[in-house]
Each structure stands twice: as structure tokens, then as C-alpha cells.
């Protein structure tokens, strides 16, 4: 749909050029695209090993309960059952967690959320395993669940660590400052699920040395290995995570909650053990986006300039800390959005409840605050009688401005340019010239939509995210490039989750070495770590490492020739497998120059360090920032409250386009996920119990829900500290699009729209 637009868009600034066929800037397709389309691409759920056993996990039916007794004897005695493990069978650490080890492998005395693991079974058939898990008798003393995060502060501690996971009281500027215009709002953001298209699956294989190998679609294999090894009571070297095909990942995948029981069963039985989660288990087991409650007060001058922002942000972390601390830092730091705010007082809390667990998901923290601060900007515009885009333009951030965390924005921040780009592009035409039967109205084809009740609305949103880990996380990635027989191989533990890292790695090597045939090796933890596949890390850090390694190989290859001809290596170039000198005197092929040798080089990339936010929420916490502007056009049936997004016009700050086709798909995917968060995606709970943990009850956007996504502008201002000057592109459209859809629904209906996803009753209006 918008591939053409995306390929054409980067050329807007410069002369029209055909994109290169390979190397950076080429629209290289992913190497696995054909296999994935044809359904032959192997995922973890396709794994098989001779004599494998099947695992099943017994999960708590209560959100909060005391376990008084667990009796596994009936299950263990069933024919075909080979092992039953509970908390008593965990040989190493009983708890694990990223940052804080607060989450038990198996609940031993207290169950803290619906679906928490209590025991696991290995049997010779998946059905036997499931029946055996059901045959384990657990006696519960049901406790009152704490499901309202506002009540978590005063509630009895749900965990020995207490209910407050993190508190950041950011204060910046003068608390007495005020403005002539004040707007206030209370906003609620729902629980979005990463809903990967393939549910969790994995295979654990015991090793003869007493270790275990975990074959899973992990997105952070080294961390997962270390957490698992600690629970197994093994050295990290004796646990190996081998990454299989990843069936979709917009959050953490195959977290240790799946891997550790699997590994324990393999160690216990001495047999390979496979686990393939059902969709229900997947919904119950993995981490979701933090449901958030936000209170805002914006003070502005009569001209619409922001003077002060006061905000309170409450993240529902669920039962365990996971990555809530990072999410809270992002939420607090970006609470004012990409606007210049001279005085800001933002207080953020992440609290423990008995709700489903929250954790890392694309755009964490930033998405929730974006929906709120953009709603505030709309309110401000309405109060001042200004155009919503104009109010935003009067306040936008630019390079050199200071964030409320005290950090100066040093990277390109072309926010005004992005906003103007989406504002100035013509609106999509009304379908009045096409036959009425062909109109796609809210409610869909064969739906109940009636043209007379449909109102069109236009809304704007600006969003921002940080790239890489924040607050002093050590970011490092190591890559190896090998050249032999005219073909190159990249070895890097950066997981290809569909984000396109392996395609990018191929392009980087093609660009640097002029070798067309580049392969990317499978990932396992015998390779040096590359960090989790999140926050655009692999484009930046792993891509940087691949480039350095490729450059080192290039020097090894060209140095002897340069020496021989008495020129520096910079004067030689490699294209299409041929090495030529600037003056044409030298011309040889790469194969000849290699002379049967193998060239290897390994390099690391480690961006500049960051610092944690201090007690006042101040600090240079982020390596880089990325921005996006979206104009949403929606049709709302104001009687039924049904919403259809007609078009999303996107302008994004990308630094540099490395692969136009891939970039366009990332933006389209991100916008679509954001539309899900805006309209339908909310994993509902009733007193802590997950309701409808299936894809009928949890409505993901379908092809009919995805609008025309029009990429109107990709601003290529290179970020000098990033390799290639490129910025991560996946997360920021996810963050921005819910706010844009909400703004457009607000414009169409005149309703406040202060809750995401937007419920139909919030989008009805009197004609």
C-alpha cells in the first residue's frame, strides 16, 4: 500500500535516484520472507527430538491465594507421566527477575496473579501432561486480591519487597510558576498484550555434562540463560540458549517463566522436553503493557505557550517488578512530550497488584503518557480556540532544548518539521464519488454503518521514545564478520525478531566489503552477548558492531594490496566483488586478493554511557531520542460509537533510511499495533481474573481495521553519535498512533475521550 510512498519519500530532499540494489539504502527483502509467506519457515513450535516428552504447567486459578497444600502423587502416578516438579524441586535460586529477583519459579506459599505457575509435568504425550497437571491437587486459602493500583499503597504488602516498586518525583523549575490558562485531565490506559502471532514454545535438551540446552524464540538469550542457570543451580556455561525462529515479538518472548520449568523437567528426566503454550497460557503467562492512570494539569499563557506541567502517573506493575522500573523512568521523563516546558513536576509510581504481570512492551511508558499529554494539548487548543496543530507548533521541542529531566537534546529533533509535514498533506477524499455500496464504513463491510450517522474527525499527535537502555544500562554488542570464498558470514547474538536485523547486517557488510553474498548465522549463547532485541538496540549497537568488524576485515583484505601499490586503503574500493583503485591502475577480484585465505574480525560497539535519574528525576538518562508525528483521520458512527481509522499520515525522524522497504513495514506494523491499543486491545480482568484470554475476546486489528498508512515524510537528519546516523523506527509509531486516533475521535464526536482503548460508549454523540 505505501511501499511506493516510502521508497519515494526519502528522495524528497535530494535528486531523484534509483535506490541501490544492495548495501545501505537498498530495499533488500528479508531473506526468510518467502519461507514465512509459504508457511515453511520453522518456528520453535516445530521443534522435534527423538524421544521427546511434553510439558504442561499447572497455573493458579486465583489471583491471590495462600497455598496450604500441594499433592502431586495422583499426577506422578499416572501412566506416561515422567516427572512432576514444584517449588521444592528448584535446585538453585527459587526466584528470578530482571533487575530484582522477586518472582518465584513456582509459587510456593502465595499465589500473586491469575495464571501464576505452581507446578510442571513432563509426560510422553501433551494430552497426558495436561491431564496430569490437572490432576495435581492444590489447596488454596483464597485471599482478597488487590486489583486497584490506587489502593496498593495502603494495602497489606503482597510481596516481601513491598508494594511500591519505584517512585520518581521529578521536579524541574519553579513550583510557584503558573499560567493564565489551566487545563486538567484524568486518563486511563488499558492493558495491551504483545499477542505474538505464535504462542510461546520451546524445547529443552539435557546435555551429557549435566547441563541443558534451551531451544526457544528468546529475544534476550544471554539474560535468559543467566536467569535460568541461577535457578538450575548451574554455571552459566552449562546452560545454552539456542534461538529458534521467532514468531513475532513486540515485547519479551519466552521469558524465563516458560524456560525454567522446561529446563528443570529436562534435567530431571534426562530426556528432551517440549512445551507449546496454548493461546490462553500465553495470555496468562507473559508480560503486558502497564495499565496506567494519569492525572495532568497543564498551565499555559494566553498565547498557548506551555509554562508548567504537573502530572501524576501510576503504573500497575502486576505482581512482580520485571522491567517496571524502566517503564516508569520513560513515562516520567517523557510525561511532557516533545514540547518545551520550563517548569515540570511529575510524580510517578509503579506499584504491585494482583493483576496480570506487566513488563517490557514496545514503547513502554512512552505510549501511556503520549495519549495523556496529547489529550491535554487538545484541551488547551479547545480552551484557547486555537487549531490543535498550531498549539503544538508553538511549543515543539528542537535540538538544544532541555527535557524535564535536565538532559539537553543533542540529537536531531525535527519535531516542527514532522508536524508541518503531516498537517500540510491533503486530507483523504470523502468517498462521495464512489457507489455507496462500496464505502467502507465503521462496522465494516456488511456492517450496520449508516452514512448519515458517520462523522469524520482529524487529530494530531506527537510522540517520542528513547533508544537503547536507559539510566546507566551497559549497552554493548559484539559481532564477528568472516569472509571466505567470496562470501561473508556475520555472527552476532542479536536476535532477528522480524525487526530486520539480519537483513540490515547483510546490507552493512555488502556496503563495507562490496560482497553481495552475506549470510547471517543462527544465534546462541556461545556467542558473545548482544543485548535484548528492544529499543532499537540492534540497529544501533549490533549494527555498529557489524560495521566495525566489516571494516576491520576490509583493512585486512586491502592492506597487502595497498602496500604493494604504495597507496592507502582508502584509495581502493570494492564493488561487485572487484577491487579497484581510484586511478584504475589496480583492478582485481576479491577472490584473487583473498588467495584462498579466510579473514575474520570481531568488534564491539558500546555507545556513550548514561546515568540514572536522581531523587528529583534529573539526569542524562538516555542515549538518543526518536520522534514521530501522526495525523489520524477517522470515521465514527456517532450512534453506535464504532470507529474506523481511515488514514494515518506519518512523518518520522529516522536519522537515515537504511532499508526503505523494511522501514515502511516497521512503521506500518507499529501504527497498526497502536490502533489496536487505541480501539480494541485490552486484556480485561474482573477482580484480578483474566477474562476472555483468547483472540476472540481480545480483538487484534485485522487487515480491515488497518487504515491506509501514508508515510508522508521521513526526515533524514543523521544522528552523529549513532552508527550510520540511523534511529530506531519501530517503537515511536506505536507510541504516537493511539494518541492520534484518540484526538481524531475527539474531533469527530466532541467527546473528551480520556480512556484507551476507546470504548464505543465513549464515542457516541448526539447528531
Amino acid at each position, binding site marked *: 500500500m505505501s511501499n511506493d510512498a516510502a521508497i519515494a519519500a526519502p528522495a524528497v530532499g535530494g535528486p531523484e535516484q534509483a535506490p541501490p540494489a544492495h548495501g545501505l539504502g537498498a530495499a533488500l527483502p528479508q531473506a526468510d520472507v518467502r519461507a514465512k509467506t509459504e508457511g515453511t519457515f*520453522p518456528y520453535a513450535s*516445530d521443534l522435534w527430538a527423538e524421544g521427546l516428552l511434553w510439558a504442561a504447567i499447572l497455573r493458579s486459578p486465583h489471583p491471590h491465594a495462600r497455598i496450604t497444600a500441594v499433592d502431586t502423587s495422583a499426577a506422578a502416578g499416572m501412566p506416561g507421566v515422567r516427572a512432576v516438579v514444584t517449588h521444592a524441586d528448584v535446585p538453585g535460586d527459587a526466584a528470578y527477575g530482571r533487575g530484582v529477583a522477586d518472582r518465584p519459579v513456582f509459587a510456593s506459599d502465595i499465589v500473586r496473579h491469575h495464571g501464576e505457575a505452581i507446578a510442571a509435568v513432563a509426560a510422553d504425550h501433551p494430552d497426558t501432561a495436561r491431564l496430569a497437571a490437572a490432576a495435581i491437587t492444590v489447596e488454596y486459602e483464597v485471599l482478597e486480591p488487590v486489583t486497584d493500583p490506587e489502593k496498593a499503597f495502603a494495602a497489606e504488602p503482597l510481596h516481601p519487597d513491598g508494594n511500591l516498586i519505584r517512585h520518581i518525583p521529578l521536579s524541574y523549575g519553579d513550583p510557584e510558576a503558573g499560567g493564565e490558562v489551566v487545563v486538567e485531565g484524568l486518563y486511563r490506559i488499558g492493558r495491551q498484550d504483545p499477542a505474538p502471532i505464535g504462542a510461546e514454545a520451546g524445547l529443552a535438551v539435557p*546435555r551429557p555434562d549435566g547441563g541443558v540446552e534451551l531451544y526457544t524464540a528468546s529475544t534476550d538469550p544471554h539474560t535468559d540463560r543467566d536467569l535460568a542457570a541461577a535457578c538450575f543451580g548451574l554455571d552459566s556455561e552449562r546452560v545454552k540458549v539456542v534461538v529458534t525462529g521467532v514468531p513475532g515479538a513486540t515485547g519479551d518472548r519466552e521469558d524465563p517463566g516458560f524456560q525454567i520449568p522446561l529446563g528443570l523437567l529436562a534435567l530431571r528426566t534426562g530426556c528432551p522436553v517440549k512445551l507449546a503454550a496454548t493461546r490462553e497460557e500465553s495470555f496468562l503467562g507473559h508480560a503486558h503493557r502497564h495499565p496506567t492512570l494519569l492525572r495532568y494539569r497543564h498551565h499555559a499563557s494566553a498565547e498557548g505557550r506551555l509554562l508548567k506541567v504537573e502530572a501524576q502517573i501510576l503504573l500497575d506493575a502486576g505482581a512482580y517488578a520485571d522491567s517496571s522500573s524502566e517503564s516508569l523512568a520513560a513515562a516520567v521523563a517523557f510525561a511532557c512530550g516533545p514540547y518545551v516546558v520550563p517548569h515540570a513536576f511529575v510524580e510517578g509510581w509503579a506499584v504491585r497488584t494482583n493483576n496480570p504481570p506487566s513488563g517490557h512492551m514496545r514503547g513502554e511508558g512512552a505510549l501511556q503518557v503520549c495519549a495523556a499529554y496529547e489529550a491535554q494539548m487538545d484541551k488547551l487548543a479547545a480552551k484557547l480556540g486555537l487549531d490543535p496543530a498550531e498549539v503544538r507548533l508553538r511549543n515543539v521541542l528542537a535540538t538544544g532544548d532541555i527535557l524535564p529531566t535536565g538532559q539537553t537534546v543533542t540529537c536531531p529533533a525535527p519535531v516542527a518539521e514532522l508536524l508541518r509535514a503531516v498537517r500540510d498533506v491533503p486530507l483523504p477524499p470523502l468517498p462521495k464519488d464512489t457507489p455507496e455500496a462500496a464505502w467502507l464504513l465503521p462496522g465494516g463491510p456488511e456492517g450496520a454503518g*449508516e452514512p448519515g450517522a458517520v462523522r469524520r474527525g482529524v487529530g494530531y499527535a506527537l510522540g517520542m521514545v528513547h533508544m537503547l537502555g536507559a539510566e546507566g544500562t551497559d549497552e554493548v554488542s559484539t559481532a564477528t564478520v568472516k569472509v571466505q570464498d567470496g562470501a561473508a558470514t556475520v555472527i552476532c547474538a542479536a536476535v532477528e525478531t522480524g525487526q530486520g536485523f539480519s537483513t540490515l547486517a547483510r546490507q552493512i557488510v555488502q556496503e563495507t566489503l562490496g560482497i553481495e553474498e552475506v549470510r547471517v548465522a543462527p544465534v546462541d549463547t556461545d556467542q558473545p552477548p548482544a543485548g535484548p532485541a528492544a529499543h532499537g538496540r540492534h540497529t544501533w549497537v549490533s549494527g555498529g558492531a557489524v560495521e566495525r568488524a566489516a571494516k576491520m576485515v576490509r583493512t585486512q583484505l586491502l592492506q597487502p594490496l595497498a602496500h604493494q601499490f604504495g597507496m592507502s586503503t582508502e584509495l581502493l574500493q570494492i564493488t561487485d566483488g572487484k577491487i579497484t583503485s581510484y586511478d584504475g591502475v589496480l583492478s582485481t577480484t576479491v577472490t584473487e586478493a583473498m588467495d584462498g585465505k579466510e579473514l575474520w574480525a570481531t568488534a564491539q560497539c558500546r555507545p556513550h554511557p548514561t546515568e540514572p535519574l536522581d531523587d528529583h528525576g534529573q539526569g542524562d538518562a538516555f542515549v538518543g531520542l526518536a520522534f514521530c508525528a501522526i495525523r489520524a483521520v477517522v470515521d465514527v458512527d456517532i450512534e453506535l*460509537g464504532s470507529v474506523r481509522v481511515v488514514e494515518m499520515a506519518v512523518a518520522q525522524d529516522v536519522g537515515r533510511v537504511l532499508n526503505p522497504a523494511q522501514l515502511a513495514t516497521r512503521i506500518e506494523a507499529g501504527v497498526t499495533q497502536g490502533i489496536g491499543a487505541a480501539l480494541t486491545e485490552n486484556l480485561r480482568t474482573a477482580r484480578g481474573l483474566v477474562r476472555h484470554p483468547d483472540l476472540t475476546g481480545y480483538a487484534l486489528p485485522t487487515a480491515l*481495521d488497518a487504515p491506509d498508512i501514508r508515510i508522508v515524510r521521513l526526515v533524514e537528519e543523521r544522528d552523529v553519535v549513532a552508527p550510520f546516523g540511523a534511529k530506531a523506527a519501530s517503537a515511536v509509531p506505536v507510541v504516537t498512533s493511539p494518541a492520534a486516533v484518540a484526538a481524531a475521535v475527539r474531533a469527530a464526536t466532541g467527546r473528551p475521550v480520556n480512556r484507551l482503548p476507546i470504548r*464505543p460508549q465513549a464515542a457516541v454523540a448526539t447528531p
Partner: protein
Amino acid sequence: MRPSWTSAPDRPEDVPELPRPACEHVRYGNTNGQPGHREGAAGLTTHAPHAAQSVTLPASLDEAVAALTAMPAAVPVAGGTDLMAAVNKGRLRPAGLVGLGRINEIRGWQYQDGHALLGAGLTHSRMGRPDFAALIPALAAAARAAGPPQIRNAGTLGGNIVTAAPTGDTLPVLAALEADLVIAGPGGTIREVPVSHLLAGRELLGPAELVGFVRVPLLHAPQVFLKATGRTGPGRATASVAVVLDPARRGVRCAVGAIAPMPLRPLEAERWIGSLIDWDGERGLAPEALAAFGEYVAAACIPDQEGEEQPPPAVLHLRRVVAALARRALGRALS
């Protein structure tokens, strides 16, 4: 032996020089625990091997009834869109299955004194086609609105009725049409039951009984089915309304689906609006009358609860949705 591992997410081919997984016996099979091919040990074709110890595929309705008589614990399955999902989830473990997919006599329809006798095996896709839509437009519209194409290709009319899910899209249409079910039973018995009796639980399917046909009157007048869902793509109805005109009996019949365990008929509202329509003339109604009909239908189907001053917002919204659907449906039927 070289390992047969080919997991490289980006490289289906082998990369021989690289560090390989130490494990020689790991490779990809399919999800059923079979190494790479689907045929394996008997019964291992789903995650639930004990599910179907016997599968019968009768070629006629009589044979199907006989198979069910011979094995009372067996469950009949047509499209399987609901049943097999429950089997795969482990919620249902039928001792045997009687597949109805090969019974040709129930896959089409025939005409019978002013009625259409629809085979219970008609798929939603088939009912959605134009020739069927010319016959029973509301049923065709409901069939087209029912789920994504994969579901419509498999799911059948009879399955929709027998599953009796509150959100079954064809059910309000059948209720509004006052369709009758032709039920085949052991010993060649045939009985007819109004669809509403089965849906309301007033009459039940007996042992070894099968819904063979659905008798639907051919009204030769406009019919409308409208459905409100949560998204633009296929989804379950939050509310649905079927309105059919019956000029011969000078009546309007309306049924509201998805808001209660069975379709609801607002009989008083039907009679009132039927009396307002000039059946011999233009048949049009003033917008106010349409709106009043909508309100009437909504109030009848979602009544105020005893002792409740103001219904909760969700109930108010549902009432508004039903009112809008009923008003729109009648307006379209009369336009």
C-alpha cells in the same frame, strides 16, 4: 552424522562452518509430535489423541442417525468451527465423531409450497452468494457477516443452530423468519420444531436426532440483518437485529440477537409498527416512527431491572445500539 538443525532465522540453508548446536537429535517436526509429516500413529492428528476413537463419515442423513444410534456417546460434527476448537483446547473429549460433511442431501436447498427447505449442511459461504441472497436476503447478509472467510467456508447453518451461541449470526434471522427445523430421528422419524423452541430450550434434540433441514418461508419482500461489532474486521456481534417484512400477512417481524442467550422478539413493537405501515401503498414511514420503533424494540428487549433507578452506562449503550440497529434495519427494509 551431521545435525539436521536448520534453525537460522534468516537462512534456511545450512551454514556448515559455524558453531553448530551440540545436540544431534534436535530437528523440526510438526506440532503434533510427528517428525515432519502429518501421518503418524493413529489418532495423533490433533493435540487430543483420545478425542476421537472412532470417526464415522455417513453418506446420508439416515446413515448418520443410524451411526449415532449405534454409538450414543458419539458427537455429530459438521463444519467443526466451534466443536473442534473445544476438542483442541481439551474442553471436550468426544468418544466418537460422526462427520456430516459427506451428506450431500443436506448441502443444498429445494422449494416446497412457498417455502425453501434449506439443508443444515449449507455453509455460510454458500448462503452468502447472490442466488441465495435473492431468495432470503437477511440470511445471506447474516452469513456474509459471520466471521472471516475460513470460518464461513466451514461453518454450517445447522451448526450455527445447534451450537446456539448467543452471538450466532443466523439465529435472529431464523427467529424473525419463524423458521422450522426438520429433525431426523432413529427409525426414520421426522419431526418439525420451530427454531425458537429449540433455541429457548422448550424442546430439545433427543438421542441420535439430527437437524436435517430448515424450513424457511419465502416472503418475496425486503429483509435486513444488521450487526454491531467492536471492530471493522470480522468480530462477534455486540448486538444484531433482523427485520423481515411479510406483506402477505401484513406484518413486520423483528428479532434481536447477541444480547441474550437466544434471539428476542419484540412482539408488541412488531404489531404496533405493522399497523402503521400502508401495506398497499408506499410502505414508507416517517423518521419519527422509525425512531420510535427502535426505542420500542430496545426497551422491550433490554427492560429496566426492578429497583434500579438508572441502568449502568454499558446497558444504556447497548439499548442505544439496539435502538439504532432496529431503526436502521426497518428504515432500509421500507426504503
